[in-house]
C-alpha cells in the first residue's frame, strides 16, 4: 500500500486522484504563501496536511476547496479546472468544513445540519422528503440524533464539531475537506472526532484534513503531506514519512520516533529541555 502510494505520487499521479493541485501559486495581496505546488489527493483514504505554523497548510486546503483562487496553476476536480466550475457544482462534489465555524445563537442542531442540503435545493424546491432522509442519516452517522432539538451553542466543543461534520455530510459528497477539525478540543474529544472521521473514511469518503497534532495525524491518516514554507517537503504513508530527520527539517523539532505501543504506526516523542533523560 505504502510503496504503491509513493510510486503513484512520484509519478505525478492524476489518473486515480479526484482532486489535485498542479503548479499552484497562491498568495494574499502580493505575499506568496504557496509557490508552484503539486499535490494529488489519493482517493478513498485520509490525507492529512501537517507542517509548522504559517507554512501554508490551511491555504492549501482553502485553495483545493476553491475558497482561494490561485494566481497561477490549476486545481483539478474530477477532471475539470475547479475555478471554471459553478460554485454550486463544486458544492455537490466537495464538502468543506472551515476552521472554527460559528452558528447563530439559538439555532438548533437539526436546522444547522439541514442547511447542508443547500446545494441540492432551489428557490422553488427548498425542502424534499429526500432531504429529510439524508439529514436524518447524517445526524445518526455522527451520533447527534438525540441532540437534534438542542441549540448548537448549548453543546460542548466536541459535540459541536460533530454537528458541523454532520452538516458537511448532509451535503452528500464523498470528498471531505476539514480544516483543523480538532482545534479547541481536549485530547479525549479530539480522539472522538477523529474516530468519527475514520468512520467516514471506512464508509467510502475521501478525506483531506489539516491537523496540528503530529501523533494524531500519524495515527489517523494513510497519507501525510508535510509542508514547509509553502512547499511540500515529503508525502506518503506515515511509516515511510515520519523520521527524526524529517521532523527536524520541517519543524526544527528534536524528537525521537519510536514504535507505537498500541498501534502499527510510528510514535513521535518530542525532546524538549525539561526532565529529559537521554542515554
Amino acid at each position: 500500500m505504502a510503496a504503491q502510494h509513493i510510486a503513484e505520487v512520484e509519478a505525478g499521479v492524476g489518473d486515480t486522484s479526484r482532486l489535485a493541485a498542479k503548479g499552484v501559486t497562491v498568495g494574499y495581496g502580493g505575499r506568496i504563501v504557496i509557490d508552484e505546488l503539486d499535490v494529488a489527493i489519493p482517493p478513498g483514504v485520509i490525507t492529512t496536511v501537517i507542517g509548522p505554523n504559517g507554512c501554508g497548510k490551511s491555504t492549501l486546503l482553502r485553495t483545493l476547496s476553491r475558497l482561494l483562487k490561485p494566481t497561477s496553476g490549476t486545481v483539478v476536480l474530477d477532471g475539470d479546472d475547479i475555478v471554471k466550475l459553478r460554485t454550486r457544482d463544486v458544492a455537490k462534489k466537495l464538502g468543506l468544513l472551515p476552521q472554527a465555524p460559528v452558528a447563530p445563537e439559538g439555532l438548533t442542531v437539526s436546522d444547522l445540519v439541514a442547511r447542508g442540503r443547500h446545494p441540492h435545493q432551489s428557490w422553488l424546491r427548498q425542502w424534499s422528503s429526500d432531504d429529510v432522509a439524508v439529514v436524518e442519516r447524517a445526524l445518526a452517522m455522527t451520533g447527534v440524533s438525540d441532540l437534534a432539538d438542542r441549540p448548537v451553542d448549548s453543546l460542548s466543543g466536541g459535540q459541536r464539531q460533530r454537528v458541523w461534520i454532520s452538516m458537511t455530510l448532509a451535503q452528500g459528497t464523498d470528498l471531505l475537506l476539514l480544516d483543523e477539525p480538532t482545534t479547541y478540543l481536549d485530547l479525549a474529544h479530539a480522539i472522538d472526532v477523529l474516530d468519527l472521521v475514520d468512520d467516514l473514511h471506512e464508509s467510502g469518503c475521501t478525506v483531506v484534513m489539516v491537523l496540528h497534532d503530529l501523533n494524531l495525524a500519524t495515527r489517523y491518516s494513510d497519507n501525510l503531506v508535510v509542508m514547509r514554507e509553502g512547499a511540500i517537503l515529503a508525502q506518503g504513508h506515515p511509516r515511510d514519512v515520519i523520521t527524526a530527520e524529517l521532523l527536524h527539517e520541517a519543524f526544527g523539532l528534536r524528537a525521537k520516533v519510536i514504535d507505537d505501543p498500541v498501534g502499527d504506526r510510528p510514535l513521535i516523542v518530542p525532546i524538549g529541555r525539561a526532565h529529559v533523560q537521554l542515554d
Partner: protein
Amino acid sequence: MNGPDVKKPDVKPDVNPSVAPGVRLGQVSFVWRPLIVFVTLLLAAATFLVFCVSIGVGDFPIGLNRVIATILGRGERVDEFVVMDLRMPRALAGLVVGIALGVSGAITQSIARNPLASPDILGVTGGASAVSVFLVTVSGGTATAIVSSVGLSAAALLGGLGTGLLVYFLAWRRGVDGFRLILIGISVSAVMEAITTWLLVTADIRDVAKAQAWLVGSLDNRSWGEVRIALWCTLVLLVVVASVAFQFKPMHFGDEIAAGLGVRYSMVRAVLLLCAVLLAAAAVSAAGPVPFVALVAPQVAMRLARCPTPPMVASGLVGALLLIGADLVARTALPISLPVGVVTAAIGGPFLVYLLVRANLR
C-alpha cells in the same frame, strides 16, 4: 457523547430526530415551520387592523367596517373621498416606510451578523438628513431651485443613497466584512451628523424649526405623489430581496461555510446590501429619518417567531405595525400631536428591553 468511552455511533437512534417536515405543492416545496407562519399571519392581520383603525380616526371619524368596505371599493361617496384621497396617503406612507425599514434592518443585521447594525449605520439616514437640512437652511439660488425642481424627498433619497454607496465602497476590501462596514458607516454617519449640526447652528432660526421637524421623522401632510415613489421603489426592492433571500440562508454561518455550500456570497451580499440601502433611502424620503424602527423591528420579529436569525417578512410587518401604531398614538392618545419619530423610539425601545429582560428571567 462526552468522552472517548463512547464508541462508534453505529447504534440506531430510538427517537426519530426532529428534522423539520417539508410541505409540497406541485413543484414547490418548503420547510414547514408552524410558529413562523402563525406569527407572520398574526402580524399581517394586526397590521391591517391598525392600518384601518388609523384611517378611521380623525376629525371626521369613520367606523372600521366602513373603512374596510371603502378600501374594498364598496364604500359611500363621502367615505371614499375621506378615506382614499385624504387619509390613505398617510396610512400607506406609514405601511410602506415601516415595511421598508423593517426589511432593511433585517438585511443589515443579518449581513453584519450584529444585532446593533441598522441602516442608520450604513450612512443612509445621516446622508439624507445632511442633504435635506442643507436644502432647507441654505436659502440661495441653487438650493431653492433644487428644492422646487426635484422636491425635498427626492433630494433626501439621493443624499441617502449616495452616502450609503460611499460607505459600501469605502468598506470594500476584497469583499465586504461586517465589522469594517459598521466602523466606516459609523464614521461617515458622524461626519454627516456634524455637517447637519453645523448647518443648524449657523442657519436662520425659522429654517431651523422647519429642518428640525423634518429630522424627527413624520407622516404629516403626505401626498399621493410622495407616497407613490416610495411605494413602487419598495415593491420592486422587495421582489429583488425575495429572489435572493434563499441564497442568503447559508450566509448566516459565515462566508466560508456559505461558499462551501455553493453560494456566491460576495454577489448575494452586494445585492442585498444595495437593497437595504435603497429601502432605507426610500423610507427616509417618504417620512424623514424615523428613528429606531429598523433597529428594533428585526429583533422583535426574531423573538416573536423564536427565530435565531431575523425573519424578513415578519420584520417588515413588525416595522409597519410599529410605525402605523406609533402614528396612531401620536395623533390620538397624546394631548399634543407629536411627529411619529418621537413615539417609535418611545414605544420600540421599552418593548425590546421587555423582550430582552423576559429572556433573562427565563
